[in-house]
C-alpha cells in the first residue's frame, strides 16, 4: 500500500474534494472493501436474529434478507432462558473489576510516575513483566486457588481475578498519562501547603481523567468479554456470564439454534458498542497521548 501518509493538516492546503478517479481507487474503494468485510458479520448477526426458524432452514430463499421478521428469538432469550441473569452477572462483574483495577492502577501509576523511592524501577518492570503470564498460563492453578478460597460459582471469583490482567495494562497506560502532566502544577500546590495526596487527587487525577477513562473502557471491555476464567469458575447456570452462558447453554449438545444464538450475541455486544460510540474520541486520544510520549 503506497498511499501517501500525509496527516490532516497538510490536507487543508489541497481542495478536499478532488473527485478524480485516482482518489476513488486509492481511497474510497479500498475503504469500502474494508468496511464491507468488517461489518458483514454484524449484518449477518442482525439478519439471522430476526428470521424465523422456518426461514433460516429454507434452502431456496435468498438468505441475505429477512422476509418476515420475527422477535421470537428475543422473546425466547428473555422469557425462556437465563439471559437476563447472565446480563446482570456480567454487568456487576465488569463494573466491579473495572473499579478495582482503576483504583489500584491510579495509585500505582501515580507512585511510579511521580514519586521517588527505592525499588520503584524494579517494581515498574515487575508489573510490566506480568504480560508474560496471561490467563492461559494461569487457569489451572488459579482454579485450585479459587477452590481453596471456596469461590467457585461466586461472582467474586471473577471480580478478584480479572484485575490481574487489567491492572498491569491500566497502570502502564496511566504512568504515561501522569508523566504528560506538567510537574509544576503539582509543585505549586505543594508549595502552597497541600499534601502529596491532596495534590494528587485535586490536581493530577482530574487532569488525567481522559487517560483514566480510556483505561476504564479498556478494562470494562475486557472483563465484559472474558471467557476462559468464567468458563472454568462458573458452572452454575445462575452465576454464568454472557459469553459463557451463550456458548454453553444456548448451544445444546450438537444443536445450534442460530436465531437465538445470534440474537444473544447481538444483545450482548450492544453495551460495549454503545460505550465506544460515545467515547471513541477519548479512546483514540488516550492511545495518541501514549504514542506522543514514545
Amino acid at each position, binding site marked *: 500500500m503506497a*498511499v501517501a501518509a500525509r496527516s490532516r493538516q497538510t490536507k487543508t492546503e489541497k481542495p478536499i474534494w478532488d473527485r478524480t478517479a485516482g482518489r476513488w481507487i486509492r481511497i474510497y474503494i479500498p475503504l469500502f472493501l474494508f468496511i464491507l468485510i468488517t461489518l458483514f458479520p454484524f449484518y449477518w448477526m442482525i439478519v439471522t436474529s430476526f428470521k424465523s426458524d422456518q426461514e433460516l432452514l429454507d434452502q431456496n430463499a435468498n438468505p441475505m434478507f429477512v422476509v418476515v421478521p420475527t422477535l421470537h428469538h428475543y422473546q425466547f432469550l428473555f422469557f425462556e432462558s437465563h439471559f437476563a441473569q447472565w446480563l446482570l452477572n456480567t454487568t456487576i462483574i465488569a463494573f466491579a473489576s473495572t473499579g478495582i483495577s482503576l483504583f489500584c492502577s491510579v495509585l500505582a501509576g501515580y507512585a511510579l510516575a511521580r*514519586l*521517588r523511592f*527505592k525499588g520503584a524501577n524494579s517494581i515498574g518492570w515487575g508489573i510490566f513483566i506480568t504480560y508474560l503470564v496471561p490467563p492461559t498460563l494461569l487457569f489451572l492453578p488459579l482454579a485450585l486457588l479459587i477452590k481453596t478460597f471456596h469461590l467457585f460459582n461466586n461472582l467474586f471469583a471473577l471480580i478478584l481475578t480479572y484485575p490481574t490482567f487489567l491492572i498491569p495494562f491500566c497502570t502502564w497506560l496511566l504512568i504515561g498519562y501522569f508523566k504528560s502532566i506538567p510537574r509544576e502544577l503539582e509543585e505549586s500546590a505543594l508549595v502552597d501547603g497541600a499534601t502529596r495526596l491532596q495534590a494528587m487527587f485535586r490536581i493530577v487525577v482530574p487532569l488525567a481523567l481522559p487517560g483514566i477513562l480510556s483505561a476504564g473502557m479498556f478494562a470494562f471491555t475486557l472483563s465484559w468479554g472474558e471467557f476462559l476464567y468464567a468458563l472454568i469458575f462458573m458452572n452454575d447456570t445462575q452465576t454464568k456470564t454472557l459469553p459463557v452462558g451463550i456458548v454453553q447453554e444456548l448451544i445444546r449438545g450438537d444443536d*445450534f439454534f442460530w436465531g437465538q444464538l445470534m440474537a444473544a450475541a447481538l444483545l450482548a455486544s450492544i453495551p460495549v458498542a454503545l460505550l465506544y460510540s460515545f467515547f471513541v474520541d477519548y479512546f483514540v486520544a488516550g492511545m495518541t497521548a501514549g504514542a506522543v510520549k*514514545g
Partner: protein
Amino acid sequence: MSSITLPKVAGTPKRGRLHNRVMQRESTLGYALLVPTMLMLLVFLAWPFLWGIWLSVSNAEIGNDSSHFVGIGNFVYNLSDTIFVQSFWNTMAYTAITTVFKFGLGMSMALLLNQVFPLQRFARAALLLPWIIPSVLSTLAWRWMFDPTFSILNWVLMHSIHSGGVNWLGTTNTALASIFIVNIWRGAPFYGISLLAGLQTIPPDLYEAARVDGASRWQQFREITLPLLRPVLLVVLMLSTILTFADFQLPYVLTRGAPYNSTNVLATWAFNIGVPGGSIGLGAAISLVLFPLLAIAITGVLVSLRSKE
C-alpha cells in the same frame, strides 16, 4: 493498545530543595500507594504462577489429593504426544501468519483513515468494531457463516463466481485457515487504530520538506513514516503477539479442536487435558510451554526498543 511507551519510572536526576524536604515522606507514600496493586498481583498472579510450576512437575489430577513430584515426566510425555506437537506448531503458525496479515492490513487501514474524506468518524468507528465486540460472540457469528449446510460465504461464492462451496470447518487445513481469517478480521483494526494514532503524531512539515526535496510517496513512507512509527509498532506487535500466542477463546469457539483434535492450539489443548480431562499436572505443563515462547517474543521487542535509544 493505548499507551505506546514503556514505563519509565520516576528517575533520580537533580531536584529542588522542596523535593529533598518531602523525600522521606515520598518514599513511604510511594510504597503505600503500591500496596493494593502488589497485593492483587501477588495473591492472584504470582502465587498461582508458582503453583503452576509445581503442578507441571507433579502428577496432580482432579479428585486425587496425593499428588507427588514426577520431575520432567509431564514434559517428556507431552513431547511424545502427536496432538501436543501439532498444537505447538498450530500455535506458532497461528501467531506468525496472522501477525503478518494483521500488520499489512492494519497499516493500510491506518494510512487510509489518515486521509481526509467524508464520514471519517463513521469509518473509524466501523473499522474498530470487530476489536471491541467480545470475541466469543463475533466468533460465533463466524461459525454460523462457516456452517456446513447454510454457510453464507458458500452461498456468495456459488451465486457470484459459481464455484462449489468450501468445507470450511470440516478439514484440517480449511479449519485452520478459518481460525486465521477470524483472528485477522478481529485483530487488524487494533493495528489500524494504534498505527493511526502513531501517524497523527508525525509532524506534517517532515513530509513537506521531503516533497520539496522531490521524494516520492514510497520514499516518504519508507524514510519518514516507518521509522517514526517504530515505537508504536513495536508495542503493538508485542501486545498482539502475546494475545495471539495465548489465545484460547477463538479456536475454542470456532472449532474446539475439530476435526480430530487437529486444530488445537496450546491453550485449547491444555484446557482439554486439564479441565474435562482432569490431568491438571499435564495441562499445567502444556500451558507452561507458552512461557519461554512469550519471554523470547518480549525480549525481542525490548531489545529492538533499546537499540533505538
